[in-house]
C-alpha cells in the first residue's frame, strides 16, 4: 500500500515541480490579493488521532497550479481565484479528499483518513456516473470476473458460470436489455473494444471460452463500469460498458514484484445419491413398469455363489471416482521501471490450476509489456503487447440439453447416475477384482436394450485423456500502438491502433472403452465420436482522436472527437466423425463414418464518428454531451432510422449528462453532516449491434444431395431494413459523503426502454424462407443500485470499514414482434415464456398439488392426458395431481408462470479490518428472490429411467394410501410426472461468504527486499440458502432466456489460498 502511495506522491511531486514559478504561492506571508482572488485558510488533521498533518498538498480543484502545503500545525493558506469552490487535499498514506470552501469564512478544514480505507473521492468530478474498482491482487483467481463480483456487486449483476477454473461469469448491467441478442456489457480493455466471442460454440458441452481468463488478474489495475454516457460506444454500448485497464509503469525506479500463490479446493457439495441397496430396490421396482416378460435378472440374484454376484454387488461411490480435492498454483513476476524517455511494465505469469472434477485442469502462460515512450517533446508513443496461452483438459460437463435422447457423456453426471452396485473395475472369472477398468454397463440390455447402458466414468476419464483427445487451447496476442501528438497546449491528436488475434483449437473424443454406443438421434448408433475444432478471430481497430482542452477562468471545456474503425473476423471450422475403430487413433481421418464439417465465417466492419464535449463551471456544474454515428456491415442497406449518408445507413447515438455538486455552492454551509453531495442526471441513446453478420443480405448456402453432389439454394432473404436495437436510458443518481467523510453513499436509478428488438419474424410464405431477422418489439427496464460504506473504526492502529451494496431491476416486455402476446421456447427441459407485460424469460410450466395417495382420490379427480392419437389416459394413485384450469384434461393450456429467474435484490456486504500490518477483509455476496429451475434434480429425481436417483426417491409412492410428495416411478414416465413443473422450481436466494482474506505485511526495508506480504484467503466458506442443488449460483449461457437453469455444472466449492508477495 505504501508503495502505491509512494508512487502517487512521486508522480505528484513531479507535477508540482514542473509548474512554472508563478504557481509557487508563498504560504505564510500575507500578500495583497489580486482582483478576483481570494485567500483560503484551513487546517488538515488526521481523522484518527486528531493530530495536525504536515506536508499535505492542497490544490484548487481542477486548477492544480494553485497549490499550497500544510505546515507543522497542519495549517495552510492558499490563494485561489474567486470562482474556485473546493480544494483537493492529498498526502502520502492518506486518501484524497475534495473539500468545499466555506465562502463566508474563506476556510476549508479537512480531516484525512489513511489509505487503508477504500477511497471516497476521485481526482476529477464527472458529469457521468461510473464506478471503479481497484483490483486487489491478493487472490488466487484466474480471471477478473470474481473480482468484479466482489467489488462491483450491485453495479454489475454477475453470476459465476460454474466451479470450473477461470470459467468466468455472466454479467448483466441495468437489467436485461435484449431478448435474443447479446445482453452482456461491452468489454473494453485498455481502450480497445473486445469481441468477447459470446455465444460462440464449444465442442465440449457446458464449457464456455472466457476470454477474460487470458488476462492475469494481477496485471489488471482497475475495472470501471459506466452507468451512463455510453454514446462514445455507439451501437455497442446499450448493455453497459466495462472498462478494464492493465497496469502501466508509475515509477522511475525499477521495481520487481514476485507473486507466489497456492490454493487448495475441496470437493464440491454434491447431491446425495442412493446407495447400492436402495438403488437395487429402485431398479427392480422400475423393471416392473417396463412391461418386461423376463422374470430373472442377473443383478437381482442374491445368491453369493452366483457367477455374476460380485459384479452386481458392489457399493461404489462413483463421485469419488471423478471428484477430488484439487491443488493449484500460480507464479508471477512484474517488473516496472524506466526513465524519462521510456518506461515499461513487464509481467510474466504461469498458472497451473487443477479442478475438483478430474481432468478439467487449466494451465496458463502470460506475458504482457505495456510501455510509454517519449519520442520528442510533443510526441509520445504507447506500445503494448501481450501474449497468453491457455490450455485446458476438458470433458462435457452438466446435464445435456436433450438428455433423454442422447448418450450421457458428462463424467460429473455419470458419477451421480451410475448404478452404485457396479464397480469401476472388472472381476475375473474367479470373482477377484482386477485392475482393468470396467466397460459400459449392460445389466439392462436384456430388458431395455443397449440404449440404457451408461459409461464407466473412470474409464471415460482414463481413455479420453490426451492432447489429441480432449483438450482446449487458446492463444491470444494483442498488439497496440498509440502515438499521441501534442499539437499545442490545448490540442492533442492520437491514433490508437490495435490488433488482437485469438486462436482456439480443441479436440473432443469419447473413448470406445468404457463407453456404450452413442445415439445419433433418428439415424443410428455409433461406437464413438471424434471432433476437432479450430477457430481464429482477429480484430483490427483504429481510433483516431482529437482532444482539445481549455480553461477560461471558471469555465472548463474539454472536447474529444474522432473516428473509430472496428473490423472483426471470426472463422471456425469443425470436423466430426464417428467410429474411430480403437482408442489409439482418435484423430479425424477419412475412414470415419458419418463425417461432417461445419464452419463459421463472420466478418464485420463498423465505423463510428464520435464527438464528446465536457464542460464544468466552477467545479459546481458539470455537463457532458456526446454524439456518435455508426455504420456497420451488419446493418441493412435500407435502414429507416438514423442517417443515410455516403450510401450507407448510420445510427445516431446521442447522450447528455449533467451533474451538480451542491456542496460547492456558496450558500452551502460547511457542516460535519454533509461533506459532499453530487446529483447527476442523464439521458443516453445507445445501440446493440449484435446482429447476425449476414442477416441483412440475401445469399445462397450450400446443400448436399444424396451425399454426393453439392447444390446452392437461397438460404436467406435479406432484411435490408435490419438495424441495431436501440436503448434509451434515463439515469438519475447521487453521491454523498457524510459525517466528516466517514460514510459514503451512492445511489443510481435508471429507467430504460429498448426498441427495435431483434427477433425472428415469419416472412410471408412467398419468400420460401420461413423466418427472418427483423426489428420489432420493445422492452423496458427500471431499477437502482445503492452502495454504502462506513468507516466504522478509525483508531490509530485499528481501522474498520463496512459496507453493503444492493441492486434491483425490473424488466418488462412491452411489445413482441407480429403483435404476438407471448412467445415460448423450450430449452434444457424448461419451457420459457416471454409475455407482454411480464419480465422476459419466465418459467412456464405445470403446477402441482401433491401426489394422489389413493386410487379413489385419483378416480374422483378424474384427470387425464390425451395421447397423440386422441386417446385419454387417466392419472392414477401415485401420480402427480396437476392443477388444471377448468377441465379434467391436463394439457398445455394448464401451464402457468411458475418461476422468475430474476432476483429481487442482489449485491454484497463487506468488512475490512486493519490492525497495523495485519489486514482482514471479508465479502459476502447475495441474491434474493430469484427462482431456479433445477434441471439436474429433474433428471436425478424424475423416477422414469434407470439413472441412480437421489435419496429423496426412497420416499417415492409405492403403496395405496401412502402420503408423500414423490410420485410413483414408471419407466419412461407415460403420465409426465416428471415434466417441467413447479416440482423443479426452487428459491435460488442465497447469502454466501464469498471470500475472507487475511494478510500481513512485514515491515522489511533492506537493499534486497522492499516489502514482503503473506496472505491467505478462503473462498465460499459458508452459504445460507434453501436451494437443494449444489450451488444456486450457476449460469449455463449468456442468453437472458436461459437464466436460472441449473444443469449441474461443476459447482463452486470451498477453497483456500496462500500467497506470498515479494517486492524487490
Amino acid at each position, binding site marked *: 500500500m505504501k508503495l502505491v502511495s509512494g508512487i502517487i506522491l512521486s508522480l505528484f511531486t513531479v507535477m508540482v515541480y514542473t509548474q512554472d514559478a508563478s504557481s509557487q504561492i508563498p504560504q505564510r506571508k500575507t500578500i495583497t490579493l489580486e482582483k478576483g482572488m481570494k485567500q483560503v485558510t484551513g487546517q488538515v488533521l488526521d481523522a484518527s488521532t486528531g493530530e495536525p498533518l504536515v506536508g499535505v498538498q492542497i490544490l484548487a480543484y481542477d486548477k492544480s497550479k494553485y497549490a499550497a502545503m500544510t505546515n507543522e500545525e497542519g495549517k495552510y493558506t492558499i490563494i485561489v481565484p474567486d470562482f474556485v469552490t473546493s480544494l483537493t487535499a492529498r498526502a502520502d498514506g492518506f486518501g484524497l479528499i475534495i473539500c468545499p470552501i466555506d465562502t463566508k469564512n474563506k476556510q476549508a478544514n479537512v480531516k484525512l483518513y489513511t489509505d487503508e480505507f477504500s477511497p471516497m473521492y476521485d481526482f476529477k468530478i464527472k458529469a457521468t456516473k461510473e464506478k471503479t474498482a481497484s483490483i486487489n491482487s491478493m487472490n488466487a483467481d484466474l480471471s477478473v470476473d470474481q473480482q468484479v463480483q466482489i467489488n462491483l456487486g450491485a453495479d454489475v449483476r454477475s453470476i459465476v458460470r460454474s466451479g470450473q477454473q477461470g470459467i468466468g461469469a455472466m454479467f448483466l448491467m441495468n437489467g436485461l436489455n435484449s431478448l435474443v441478442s447479446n445482453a452482456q456489457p461491452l468489454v473494453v480493455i485498455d481502450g480497445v473494444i473486445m469481441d468477447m466471442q459470446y455465444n460462440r460454440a464449444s465442442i465440449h458441452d457446458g464449457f464456455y471460452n472466457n476470454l477474460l481468463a487470458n488476462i492475469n488478474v494481477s496485471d489488471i489495475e482497475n475495472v470501471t463500469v459506466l452507468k451512463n454516457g455510453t454514446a462514445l460506444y455507439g451501437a455497442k454500448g446499450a448493455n453497459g460498458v466495462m472498462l478494464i485497464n492493465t497496469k502501466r509503469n508509475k515509477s522511475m525506479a525499477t521495481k520487481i514484484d514476485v507473486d507466489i500463490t497456492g490454493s487448495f479446493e475441496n470437493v464440491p457439495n454434491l447431491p446425495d445419491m442412493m446407495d447400492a441397496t436402495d438403488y437395487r430396490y429402485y431398479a427392480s421396482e422400475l423393471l416392473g413398469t417396463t412391461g418386461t416378460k423376463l422374470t430373472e435378472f442377473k443383478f437381482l440374484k442374491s445368491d453369493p455363489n452366483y457367477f455374476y454376484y460380485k459384479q452386481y454387488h458392489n457399493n461404489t461411490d462413483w463421485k469419488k471416482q471423478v471428484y477430488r480435492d484439487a491443488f493449484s498454483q500460480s507464479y508471477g513476476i512484474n517488473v516496472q521501471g524506466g526513465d524519462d524517455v521510456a518506461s515499461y511494465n513487464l509481467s510474466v505469469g504461469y498458472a497451473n490450476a487443477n479442478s475438483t472434477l478430474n481432468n478439467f485442469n487449466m494451465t496458463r502462460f502470460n506475458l504482457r509489456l505495456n510501455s510509454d515512450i517519449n519520442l520528442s517533446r510533443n510526441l509520445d508513443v504507447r506500445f503494448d503487447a501481450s501474449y497468453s496461452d491457455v490450455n485446458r483438459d476438458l470433458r462435457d460437463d452438466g446435464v445435456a440439453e436433450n438428455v433423454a435422447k442422447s448418450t450421457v457423456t458428462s463424467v460429473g453426471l455419470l458419477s451421480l447416475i451410475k448404478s452404485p452396485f457396479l464397480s469401476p473395475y472388472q472381476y475375473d472369472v474367479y470373482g477377484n477384482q482386477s485392475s482393468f477398468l470396467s466397460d459400459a454397463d449392460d445389466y439392462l440390455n436384456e*430388458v431395455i436394450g443397449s440404449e440404457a447402458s451408461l459409461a464407466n466414468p473412470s474409464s471415460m476419464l482414463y481413455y479420453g485423456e490426451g492432447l489429441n483427445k480432449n483438450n482446449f487451447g487458446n492463444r491470444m496476442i494483442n498488439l497496440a500502438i498509440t502515438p499521441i501528438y501534442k499539437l499545442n497546449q490545448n490540442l492533442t491528436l492520437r491514433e490508437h491502433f490495435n490488433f488482437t488475434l485469438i486462436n482456439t483449437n480443441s479436440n473432443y473424443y469419447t473413448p470406445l472403452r468404457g463407453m456404450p454406443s452413442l445415439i445419433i438421434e433418428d439415424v443410428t448408433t455409433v461406437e464413438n465420436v471424434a471432433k476437432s475444432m479450430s477457430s481464429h478471430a482477429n480484430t483490427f481497430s483504429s481510433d483516431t482522436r482529437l482532444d482539445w482542452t481549455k480553461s477560461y477562468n471558471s469555465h472548463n471545456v474539454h472536447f474529444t472527437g474522432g473516428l473509430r474503425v472496428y473490423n472483426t473476423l471470426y472463422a471456425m471450422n469443425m470436423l466430426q466423425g464417428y467410429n474411430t475403430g480403437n482408442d489409439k487413433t482418435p484423430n479425424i481421418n477419412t475412414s470415419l463414418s458419418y463425417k461432417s464439417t461445419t464452419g463459421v465465417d463472420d466478418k464485420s466492419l463498423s465505423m463510428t464518428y464520435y464527438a464528446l464535449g465536457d464542460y464544468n463551471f466552477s467545479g459546481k456544474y458539470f455537463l457532458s454531451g456526446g454524439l456518435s454515428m455508426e455504420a456497420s456491415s451488419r446493418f441493412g442497406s435500407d435502414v429507416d432510422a438514423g442517417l443515410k449518408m455516403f450510401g450507407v445507413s448510420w445510427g445516431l447515438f446521442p447522450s447528455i449528462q449533467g451533474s451538480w455538486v451542491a456542496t460547492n455552492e456558496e450558500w452551502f454551509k460547511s457542516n460535519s453532516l454533509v461533506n459532499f453531495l453530487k446529483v447527476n442526471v442523464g439521458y443516453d441513446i445507445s445501440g446493440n449491434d449484435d446482429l447476425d453478420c449476414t442477416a441483412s443480405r440475401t445469399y445462397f448456402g450450400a446443400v448436399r444431395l444424396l451425399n454426393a453432389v453439392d447444390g446452392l439454394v437461397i438460404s436467406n432473404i435479406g432484411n435490408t431494413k435490419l438495424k441495431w436495437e436501440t436503448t434509451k436510458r434515463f439515469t438519475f443518481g447521487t453521491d454523498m459523503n457524510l459525517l466528516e467523510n466517514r460514510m459514503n453513499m451512492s445511489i443510481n436509478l435508471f429507467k430504460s426502454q429498448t426498441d427495435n428488438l431483434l427477433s425472428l419474424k415469419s416472412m410471408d410464405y412467398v419468400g420460401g424462407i420461413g423466418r427472418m431477422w427483423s426489428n420489432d418489439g420493445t422492452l423496458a427496464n427500471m431499477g437502482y443500485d445503492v452502495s454504502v460504506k462506513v468507516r466504522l473504526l478509525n483508531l490509530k492502529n485499528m481501522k474498520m470499514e463496512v459496507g453493503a451494496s444492493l441492486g434491483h431491476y425490473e424488466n418488462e416486455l412491452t411489445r413482441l414482434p407480429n403483435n404476438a402476446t407471448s412467445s415460448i421456447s423450450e430449452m434444457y427441459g424448461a419451457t420459457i415464456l416471454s409475455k407482454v407485460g411480464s419480465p422476459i424469460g419466465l418459467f412456464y410450466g405445470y403446477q402441482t398439488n401433491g401426489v394422489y395417495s389413493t386410487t379413489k382420490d385419483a378416480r374422483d379427480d378424474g384427470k387425464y392426458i390425451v395421447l397423440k392419437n386422441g386417446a385419454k389416459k387417466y392419472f392414477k394413485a401415485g401420480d402427480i395431481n396437476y392443477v388444471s384450469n377448468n377441465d379434467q384434461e391436463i394439457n398445455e393450456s394448464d401451464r402457468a408462470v411458475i418461476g422468475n429467474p430474476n432476483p429481487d435484490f442482489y449485491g454484497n456486504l463487506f468488512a475490512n479490518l486493519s490492525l497495523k500490518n495485519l489486514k482482514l477483509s471479508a465479502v459476502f455476496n447475495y441474491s434474493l428472490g430469484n427462482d431456479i429451475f433445477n434441471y439436474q434434480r429433474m433428471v436425478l429425481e424424475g423416477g422414469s429411467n434407470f439413472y441412480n436417483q437421489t435419496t429423496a426417491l426412497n420416499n417415492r409412492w409405492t403403496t395405496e394410501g401412502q402420503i408423500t410428495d414423490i410420485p410413483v416411478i414408471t419407466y419412461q414416465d407415460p403420465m409426465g410426472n416428471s415434466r417441467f413443473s413447479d416440482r423443479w422450481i426452487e428459491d435460488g436466494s442465497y447469502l454466501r461468504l464469498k471470500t475472507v482474506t487475511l494478510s500481513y505485511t512485514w515491515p522489511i526495508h533492506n537493499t534486497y527486499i522492499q516489502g514482503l506480504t503473506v496472505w491467505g484467503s478462503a473462498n465460499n466458506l459458508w452459504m445460507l440458502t434453501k436451494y437443494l442443488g449444489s450451488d444456486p449460483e450457476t449460469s449455463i449461457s449468456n442468453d437472458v432466456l436461459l437464466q436460472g437453469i441449473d444443469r449441474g455444472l461443476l459447482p463452486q466449492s470451498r477453497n483456500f489460498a496462500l500467497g506470498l508477495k515479494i517486492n524487490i
Partner: protein
Amino acid sequence: MNKKLLLYFSVGILSLTSLTGCQGLFNLDSEQVLFVEDNPLDAPTDTVYSVIGVLNKLQRIADRTVLLGEIRGDLVSLTPDASLQLQALADFTAGTDNEYNAPEDYYAVINNCNYFIANVDTSLKKRNSPVFMKEYAAIKTFRAWTYLQLAQIYGSVPFITEPILTEKQASVNYEKKDIKAIAAYFVEDLKPYINTPFPSYGSIGGSSSQSFFIPVRLLLGDLCLWAGRYIDAATYYHDYLTMLNRPMPTQLSRTQWTNSTNTFEGYPSNNFGNIFSATGTEVLSYIPMESTRFNGLVSDLVNVFNSTTLNKNFYQATFSNALKELSKSQSNCKVYENTLTSTRDTLFAPSENNINNLFVGDLRLAAVYNHATVSNNSFNTYSTSYQTISKFGAQVYTYRRSVIYLRYAEAMNRAGFPKAAFAVLKYGLTVGNIGKYVDSTEIRAAGNLLAWDNNAFTSLNTLGIHSKGSGEANANKHYVIQPQATKADSIDFVEDLICDEMALESAFEGYRFYDLMRITMHRNDLYNTSDNDYLASKVAGRKGATQFNQDLYDDLKIQTNWYLPLK
C-alpha cells in the same frame, strides 16, 4: 488484411471530408455463403449447383405431395395411432398451423427456380451449344410442377415468376391464379422445351439422375387435363408414350389367379407388388430422397403407411373400406384352358376367399398389402399389428407408366373417345386391339391420337390396365360399357370406370384426391362447379357403404373446403 484495414481507415478519413460513398466497403465477403450478387449464373460450372439446389428443396415437399393427395382421398383410412395432424387432414379441418400446411416450402422451390430463370445467361455457348438450355428447361418444368401442386392443394395461389430477393419483395400482395390460369401460363411456358433433353449428370449417389427430372410432355399433359384441353392432354400423353426411340408399353406385370387350374385356390401370382422400385421400368420419375437422416431429408411415408422400428410398428394409415369394397366388387375373370380337352372357359372368381379376405375381386390391393401379427419381444412398446404396403421406397415417385395410361384414357374419354379410353382399361392399346375394339368413327376422329406403333406395342408387352389385377379383363363379359342413352352418358360411364381403375391401380400413391377433384371438375363444366357430389360422396364414403359421413359430405359439397387454408 493490413492493407485492407489501411484502406478502410483512409476511406473513413476521406469520407469525413469528401463524402465519397462507402457502401461497397461494408459489403464484406464470406467463405460460408454466396451472396446473391456473387452468383450471376454466367459460367458453365454454375449449371449443376442450381439444379441440385432445386432438387434439395423439392425433397421438402416430396412426402407432402403424396400425403395431401392420399390422406384426404377415399382410399385410405387412418388408424387410431395417426397423429392429430394427419387426422385433421383426413377430416378437412387442418388449419394454417397444420404441419403439412407449409406453402413456404413450395415457394422455396419456386423462388430458387425463379432466380435461375431470371438470371441465367441462356445465350452462353460452349462449342456452339447453349450451356444452360437443358437446366433451363428442367428448372422451368420443376417450377411448373410445383405451381401445379400448389394449385391442387390451395386452389388459388399468389403467382410469381420473378425472384424474391428482399424482404420488401416478399411482402408484396401478389396476384393469385387458380389452376386453370396456372395451367394456361405454363402450357405456353413449357411448350418450347418439349424436345429439350434432361441434363446429363449420370449417376448421383447410386441413382440415375435422369429420373430426377420431370418429363415435360407428361407435365404438359397434366396441365392440359386440368385446363380441360383434353385433345392437347391426350396428345402429350400419347406422344410421350409412343416416342420412337423409347416406346412405353404397359408391360405385363400383373397379379392374377393362375390359368392352369380351374379353381381359385391357393395364392395368386404376384408380379404387381414388385414393380414399385425406382430402378425398374415402371417408375418414370421421382424426387430423390436421402438414404439416412444424417445426410438430410429421408422420406417418412414408409413410417406413415408401414410398420417400422422407427414407429415401433404403429403405422398410421391403412386401406379404407371403400377401397376394399371397390376391389371386392370387381369381377375377376380367368381364361382356363383344359390342356386335355383343349377347351377354354372363362371362370369368375368367387366373392369369398378363405386364405385372405383380400383375395377377392381385383387383386392389386392384396398384391401390395401385407399384414401380420408379430410376437412382441421382451418389451411391450412395439405394436403386434404389422403392416406393409409395398408401394413405398426410399424415393418419392412423381410419375409412373400405368398412371399415364389412365390419364391418357381420362383425356381421350373426355375428348369424345370413350371406346378408345375403355380399350386402355380392357384390352391395351395395340394396333390389333384398336382396330377390333374401337369403333371406326373414333379411330378416324382420333387420327394420330390412336397411332400406336405396330412393332413397339404388341400383345407381348401390352395389357389392359384392368387386367393388371382383375384377371383377363379382355375376356370378361361383365366388364363392358353398358349401353347409355347418350354419348355424354357413355363418357361419364367410362369415366367412372377410369376413376375406379385409378383407385385400384394407384391407391396410396398420392394421386387420389386430385383425381377426384379433376373428374368432379370435368363433370361440372369445368370450373363452374355447381355439383360437387362426385368428390364429396366418394370421400364421405371412404369408410364404406355403411358408414357414410354426412357431415363430411356436406362440407365437401362446397369446393373451397377442398383446399387447405393459406396463411
